[in-house]
């Protein structure tokens, strides 16, 4: 059966989603460097207040995550049923629930220290 499957998979064009072009890798590489430098500079020079800096770092982290997924993990190129994308989104939803839910629930149970 293994043989059988191997044949049909190879029959498809551009199997495993293919690889990115040189251009997309360079763009991704530059973007990820820029997104790393921005928070670094902001923190090193103490450019913003503490709260703004935190938000900035978080936003940069999320963008970085997106860049990694789009340019290096080839999330766009997946073939149709997009199991990777579906499970990624589901995982994010669960993660958000765990973190935000815990914060919400525990706000009212905080122990005075």
């Amino acid at each position: 059966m293994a043989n059988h499957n191997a044949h049909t998979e190879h029959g498809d064009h551009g199997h495993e989603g293919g690889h990115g072009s040189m251009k997309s890798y360079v763009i991704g590489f530059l973007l990820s460097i820029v997104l790393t430098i921005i928070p670094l500079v902001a923190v090193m020079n103490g450019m913003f207040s503490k709260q703004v800096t935190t938000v900035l770092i978080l936003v940069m982290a999320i963008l970085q995550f997106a860049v990694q997924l789009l340019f290096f993990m080839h999330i766009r190129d997946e073939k149709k049923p997009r199991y990777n994308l579906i499970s990624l989104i589901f995982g994010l939803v669960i993660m958000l629930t765990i973190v935000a839910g815990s914060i919400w629930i525990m706000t009212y149970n905080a122990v005075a220290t």
Partner: protein
Amino acid sequence: MWDKIKDFSSEFFVTGDPLILGAQVSIAITMVAIVFILTYFKKWRWLWTEWLTSVDHKKIGIMYIIASILMLFRGGVDALLMRMQLAVPQVEFLNAEHYNAIFTTHGVIMILFMAMPLMFGLFNIVVPLQIGARDVAFPFLNSLSFWMFFFGAMLFNVSFVIGGSPDAGWLAYPPLSGLSGSPGVGQDFYIWGIQISGIGSLATGINFIVTILKMRAPGMKLMKMPMFTWSVLSSCTTIIFAFPILTVTLFLLFIDRYLGAHFFTLDGGGNPMMYINLIWMWGHPEVYIVILPAFGIFSEIVSAFSKKKLFGYKSMVFALMSISFFSFFTWAHHFFTMGSGANVNAFFAVTTMLIAIPTGVKVFNWLFTMYRGKLSFPTPMMWTIAFIPCFVIGGMTGVLLSVAPADFQFHNSYFLIAHFHQVLIGGVVFGYFAGLYYWWPKMFGFKLHEGLGKWAFWFWNIGFYVCFMPQYALGLMGMTRRFNEYNFDMGWQPLNVVSTVGGFLMGIAFLFQVWQIAHSIKFYKKEKTGDTWDGRTLEWSIPSPAPMYNFARIPVVTEQDDWWEKKQRRLRGEADPPEVAQAEQAPLEPIHMPRNSGVPFVMSSFWFIAGFGFVWDWKWMIVLGLGGVIVSMLVRSFTYNTDYYIPVEEVERTEAAARGAH
């Protein structure tokens, strides 16, 4: 020297309780007996090559089921001991400490070491056969999952006679389960037993998702999959997102206990309520993990014994998948009384009520499947019929519990105990029994005796209602869980006696099932057709028990309930579609199969050693155990000869023998 040994063993072994002494003696006798029988009949090699090293999903499934039935026995004995203690007020049949240990182990064993392995056993046996595959996606990992579960369960069970059982409740809330509340080793057995078997559960979840998504027979679109396979997919999705939460939570508790951290202690800035919050993020999805496959089993059985297509296939799929999604958003209803405020409680009350809707949809689907069907009532169908009203009542009391303000009355009372036993016994246990009876001929090639099965059925059902209906009343009368004594003047005794009688009726029912299995083996009658129940899905198209490669030729699927449609076509004298006929007449090819491996067994026993070392904090043993694990991984990594081909002649021989038995 002698004194030293005596000191050590009095700390190492649990002493001083006649019940436990009896258990120690009987465990020793049983082990000697097993060793003697295996040696006398020269079965050691057979055990090793045919079972312990097997990567065949059918054999792994059978081992899961055997282990879970043993655990059902132990958890059941625990339950009866508790019922005996509670039948009479103010006696000390079990002292408080022993009672605590027993309700803790009862809970852990029944959920994690009985329900889960029984579920995995059915996954293993049924899913590859239903989707037309020759094994699961990762057969080696499958074997590893089983042995991790097995050794984890053994590590947990051994605490009963060595070191002392955990006694902080089945979810081990700190601070009671922390170092200050439980200084003994019992809680460490709990952590390591569950952690080790938890790795196995997670791996099984991944394994079956990949199997279902990647290894279906050609033509079996997702929306043509049998409903049990769908339920396994939804259950496994929940497993892979929920079990990591358990692992992390227990690991934090371990760090608290072992390294003196303060995640869940009030000193040092921790908060024990965080543990409760985290553990239920796993705990709530967990109950859906075990119930969803039961829903799948009922769907298969209802449709097979009504001789009708399942009513509302799409809505059933939607209901299963939405439950596995929504199960992640209801966890706080387990601790409405924690004091998280009205907004939190209102939100989780509403999500809890919402999740009852897809379950209600399913109940109507089953009822409408039966409507105007050609019904018959062998044992699997009887369990299904009994399940529906039982689960509906259990679900309704669940909705009552979800009303947050009212929950302040119900919380931790026997009302709650009655509710979750009703959904877990009436749903999960009835479901898995139905599945066992239904697929038993496929596993072993013979049917279980129907008459004895009906006795067991009625004892289970009557026993269940006699045992748990009074507990709803007891809960409303104010009886709370987890204490071993109450006063005469509480007025709880009459109902408690009734409940105890019900418990023993279920105990008798279990004995009937043991008798039923023994009787059916003794009067073995080969099931010749392979299609015992005039079934609908692919597993019934092959001989019983299935040959080791399952399908000599991989079938091509064109319909939902493909095997049934094929039989109907043939009855009508119609020809199969060309691709189906072509697949069936294709010449046999050598079949590619995975080789057996002893690595999972050895590696898991090293995990057991490491876990035991962590429990007692014996560094040399931890090093030995983890070292063994690493060496096992290396051995596996450098093993290249992991598969082989079954030659065509052997396939022909096996097929002729199996089909020739007609």
